[in-house]
């Protein structure tokens, strides 16, 4: 590895200040993506500094606030899985968190990291889309459906830090990840669905985690078969090392059919 300056802010204010004033700086939370990329040298340009936000108290915790559930950007998946509030109000997010990596990864991985990394295969991202989550940063709130702007690109400004994620209470969302093996898999297709309001959100089927607008429109009309047919036009899957476009297309439709027949628990 090459030389990287390690910055450890004392609080959120300090972090925001350091991030604004340090050129070539990347935030570091659990490191489950960043350390891998540093090791494999796939970050271009390579970061000159990392800002370790892992221990910032302002970025931790799961709490109810203003009729929403708020999860700190640096709260671990394990923290989310164990949170009674999360289990009660966003069970689909808990289900998604349980499918990520192994226990070690769940102990370190964070929602903020999943969002900032913006992988089309990010397992929590379709769930956040289905919940109409709001990404709270150091300066504003970004609706989740405006957050992903391109392949691994986000609406975040160069010096903008994610602080928390907020989700409405009481929405019923169902989730299924297809990753070929039962654990430690990267998604081939990952889907989250809400019936009311109609939300069909899918990962690993395009350059971004997306909302299937045609399928949602059909669902809004109560046309389930229409939604299953339309979703094929909403997605842009490709052939890659993990799977094929044809498989992803079929499975997206099959999983949507399955999820639409499931009564969500809540």
């Amino acid at each position, binding site marked *: 590895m090459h030389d990287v300056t390690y910055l450890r802010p004392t609080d959120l204010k300090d972090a925001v200040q350091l991030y604004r004033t340090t050129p070539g700086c990347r935030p570091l939370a659990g490191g489950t993506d960043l350390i891998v990329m540093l090791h494999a040298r796939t970050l271009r340009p390579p970061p000159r500094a990392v800002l370790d936000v892992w221990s910032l108290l302002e970025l931790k915790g799961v709490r109810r606030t203003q009729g929403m559930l708020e999860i700190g950007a640096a709260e671990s998946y394990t923290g989310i899985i164990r949170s009674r509030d999360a289990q009660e109000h966003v069970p689909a997010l808990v289900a998604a968190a349980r499918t990520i990596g192994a226990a070690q990864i769940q102990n370190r991985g964070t929602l903020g990291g999943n969002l900032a990394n913006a992988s089309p295969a990010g397992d929590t991202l379709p769930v956040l889309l289905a919940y109409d989550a709001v990404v709270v940063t150091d300066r504003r709130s970004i609706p989740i459906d405006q957050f992903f702007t391109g392949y691994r690109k986000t609406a975040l400004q160069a010096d903008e830090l994610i602080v928390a994620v907020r989700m409405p209470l009481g929405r019923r969302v169902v989730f299924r990840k297809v990753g070929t093996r039962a654990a430690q898999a*990267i998604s081939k297709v990952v889907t989250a669905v809400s019936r009311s309001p109609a939300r069909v959100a899918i990962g690993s089927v395009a350059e971004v985690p997306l909302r299937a607008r045609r399928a949602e429109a059909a669902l809004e009309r109560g046309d389930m078969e229409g939604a299953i047919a339309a979703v094929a036009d909403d997605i842009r899957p490709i052939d890659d090392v*993990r799977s094929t476009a044809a498989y992803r297309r*079929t499975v997206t439709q099959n999983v949507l059919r399955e999820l639409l027949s499931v009564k969500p628990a809540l």
Partner: protein
Amino acid sequence: MCPAPVTAVGRSVPRREGADKVTGRARYTDDITVQGAWSGRTIRSTIARGAIRSITLDPAFDWSRVVVVTADDIPGDNVVQLIREDQPVLAPRGGEIKHKEEPILLLAASDRATLEEAATHVRIEYELANPVFEIGSATEVFSTVEITKGDVASVERTADLVVEREFRVGLQEQLYIEPQGAIALPEADGAFRVVGSLQCPYYVHRALKRALKLTDQQAIVVQAETGGGFGGKEEYPSIVAVHAALLARKAGRPVRLIYDRHEDLAATTKRHPGVIRHRTGVKKDGTLVFQDIEIVLDGGAYCTLTPVVLSRAAIHAAGAYSCPNVRIRARAVATNTPPNGAFRGFGAPQSLFAAELMVEHVAEQLGGGVSSVDLRRKWMLRLGDTTATGQVLTESVGSELVLDAALKAATTFQPSNIPTVRRGRGLSLVFHGSGFTGSGEKKLSGTIAMEALADGTFRILTASTEIGQGTKTIFCQLAADALGVPLERVTIAPQDTSLVPDSGPTVASRTAMIVGRLVQEAAAEIKQRLQRERPPLRVDKSYIQPDSIHWDEATYRGDAYPVYAWACTIADVDVDTTTGEVRVTDLVTAVDCGKALHPVMAEGQIEGGCLQAVGWATIEEIKMKDGGYQNDRLATYLIPTALDAPRIRTVLIENPYSRGPFGAKGIGELPMDGPAPAVIAAIHDATGVWLDEVPATPEKVLAALNGAQRREAAQS
């Protein structure tokens, strides 16, 4: 003196190295610190075929801090010592590149940062040539095997039904938990000591002598604690060791060459993929008339052990069945892909996969209520029957025992109650030759030694390695019982070629049965001599082939193996029709092992092998791109996790073999043979579709399900 009671054999005593492994005291290669050692790395080809036009070391970089080794620095022959002389240690300047990831240049530096930096300043230019990637378009043949029994041509027309099918098997990575690695240390008198993760110390010894022009004494090979091999550390460690020694020679200091997982996946050997075609003729009542089998295996770019793999594939190709007329034509071809090599099963899983599914296809096409189990019972080799090579089976034939035991152990089949999940059950019956093929053991004449020491203890000297399968423990058990002494009084010497004789490679399910027998015999001899002599004593024991074993290498007739181990496997699968995912939920396997020397380790060996086979059958897929593996990281090369593992129940059947130690036969590879065809048969039972290939990935299963659905829709 009254005979000592058998006390250690058959008992699941603690593993010799077990406590060190679970407490972290065991020192694997990368755990060994060597003062002043530099780190090495390998610069590899980025093309599949061509010639090296130039190698340029960027003058802007300070090369004084780095040791560079090219083919010009090889003092001996630029050959990886194995079967053929075709694989260079390092591709020479102007020489041909035959596959991606072929080693060209070696670097060593005092620290990793310098090493990584140096690697970015090496430029290699190539002259590109047209590569061959597909078996179908390969023209170079490494080897062929032809086995003939009876006369297929003359009986063809007497068959009432002839079934033809083609089967495909994919690449598989051994995925030992510890990647390849070696540390080379220059010693006095021009000697080199190489400590590494390896299965076969004397293979590495020969490779070092050849490439570095060393005498027997100058090449010293020591096995470090080794984190698994599965064949992957049979021949490949010779390359790692020679590379490390070349760097150490030029650097004049120790050099460690440890692969990371990515390099290990990208560059090292895999299981041979292949295409197997069967034509089977039967009478209306199911009587087997003929088997006509064609096997093509892809050897990759260099020969490695391919002819021996092909040989085992061919000998097992007719399956565990007795057929009067058999024709097996097998060939291994060259492609511009990384060389394939040894992997548990060694060709047999490939050909047995096809043979077992053929039973299913014949049963299905015969109809009339004849099940594939009925056919197996009718066809199976029994005592006194003759195999495809003309070997008369004279003892320890467990075919019927394992079939009955597996059927008895299988639970009542419960259909799925989830509408999108279909459940099915499949069965396979296989055999696996224990020990080297044909005259292999005779040619090798493996040797062990045993010492009675003055302090009343005994020491076994063998080059057979512990790679997780239990060599150290069972050898001590065998010696203790043969000597009639407590287990604690037997020790085993380190696997160091300067100390131990060449008992042969730790491969071919031969260690317990062939080498273990030598241990037992040497111990018995020591015991006898101690009646009139005083320690210290030493007995050397070499394998002598019994006169009753006859093998003709030229015609492939005779006793292909000293004996066979047998297994019947029943697999239950859930096929998710939403995703095409196959979960093997339950697996029962009955194994005729001759004698379970250590029941817990025998079961562990079988469970591990079954799971490895389930992985091969379902999710372990390697996609190729431009002659390289796309699945070259653990994020993309998927093996089953604990959550994917079926419940595995093993039934051990002790059907002793007279020349095995306490009756034992080799079972290391056998569990790799049966699960794949059982899983594919179970998928058919669940869904009605045949895949005839492994791995049965969700992509293939879903496509097959959709194809079947479309056909049904078109018919209605």
